[in-house]
């Protein structure tokens, strides 16, 4: 089972939940940080990194001696990464999405695959769990192609070991966020009971519902704000998986890079119960499927 920990709003506690769930989850398990623009799960889980590899995207390299300026590549490319400009073939490697279409299409075989570095994929261990993380190259604008490579690595590990995976995902509801949750079996949405929390929680529900995955909510900083988030969950039939109390000691522990499930029996039990509810959720039909029934 793949469980992704997502949220509309940033800073609601995705990493807090991902790290603590990793602690209480039955082993073996793979903890994955797919928030590749700012990975931080390793700061809490403190894995031993065993290997790192550079991930890159295939971008076209032009052999000018073979190019006849026919323009086939230029017309095909939807991203203006390769362009006939007067008597030149001009490439913008940073615009390329790596589809490989231009290279396949070129009738003169004037294009060959080159590389644009996307980032670094690291794999390691935390006790009996595996750890996988992507870190996007500073200056790289496209995270989804890189995330797909991290996920491909995840699939290899799952295929070899048949493990469960917990994915820490990027905030928001745009391409990177959707890309992070799209292959999971369950989506856990972390929110907080504030107007901002509710606003972005609604956006996340709207963005992820069409995927038809079972979704559940975790309310972090419970005790502040109002009851609107709970009312929304009831109305949309999104089960409440857990509430994490708003407590100073949790914030202090987070700031020190501690896993909050380790702080007390009470907190640990919150995550053990969350784990059980996620497992129940996994066997239920998703929201999208329910809507068709």
């Amino acid at each position, binding site marked *: 089972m793949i469980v992704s920990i997502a949220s509309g709003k940033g800073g609601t506690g995705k990493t807090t939940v991902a790290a603590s769930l990793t602690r209480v989850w039955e082993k073996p398990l793979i903890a994955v940080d797919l928030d590749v623009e700012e990975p931080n799960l390793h700061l809490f889980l403190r894995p031993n990194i065993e290997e790192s590899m550079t991930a890159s995207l295939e971008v076209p390299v032009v052999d000018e001696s073979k190019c006849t300026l026919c323009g086939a590549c230029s017309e095909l490319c939807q*991203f*203006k*990464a390769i*362009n*006939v*400009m*007067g*008597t*030149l073939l*001009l490439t*913008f490697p940073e*615009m390329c999405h790596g589809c490989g279409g231009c290279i396949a299409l070129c009738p003169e075989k004037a294009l060959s695959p080159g590389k644009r570095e996307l980032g670094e994929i690291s794999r390691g261990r935390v006790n009996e769990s595996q750890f996988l993380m992507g870190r996007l190259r500073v200056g790289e604008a496209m995270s989804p192609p890189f995330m797909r490579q991290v996920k491909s690595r995840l699939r290899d590990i799952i295929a070899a070991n048949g493990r469960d995976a917990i994915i820490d995902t990027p905030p928001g509801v745009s391409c990177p966020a959707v890309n992070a949750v799209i292959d999971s079996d369950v989506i856990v949405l972390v929110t907080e009971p504030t107007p901002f929390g509710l606003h972005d929680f609604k956006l996340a529900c709207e963005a992820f519902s069409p995927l038809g995955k079972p979704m559940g909510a975790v309310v972090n900083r419970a005790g502040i704000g109002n009851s609107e988030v709970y009312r929304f969950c009831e109305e949309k039939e999104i089960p409440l998986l857990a509430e994490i109390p708003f407590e100073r000691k949790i914030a202090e522990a987070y700031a020190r890079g501690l896993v909050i499930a380790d702080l007390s029996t009470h907190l640990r039990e919150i995550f053990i119960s969350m784990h059980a509810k996620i497992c129940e959720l996994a066997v239920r039909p998703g929201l999208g499927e329910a809507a068709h029934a």
Partner: protein
Amino acid sequence: MSKIAITSEGPALDDLVDTRFGRAAGFVVVDLESMETRYIDNGQTQVMGQGAGIRAAQLMAGAGVSFVLTGFVGPRAFQALSAVKIGVVQNMEEGMTVRQAAERFQSGAVKLADGPNRRPGR
């Protein structure tokens, strides 16, 4: 060597300059010898998610202009225009007409840009 293009909100010399290059509404191409004008609509470029500046530069190369007069040019558009040796005159102000821009160019009171003046995708 006598055609210039001015980014414009409309097809006529008295229309206002559109200060954006890549996402300009269109381009008024002026033949400085005959003062004849031609309008190139840029609507299809405006709706692009990315690469508008590059596409606009392709249109300029296709139109055979030697200079482009506009407000702001991003780095990729600048690179593309430079690659085909089209001179860039930027910092045309909002509110001026295409005619005023052309006259300023003809009077010689302009200087060629040596780099972009806007970040990509803006």
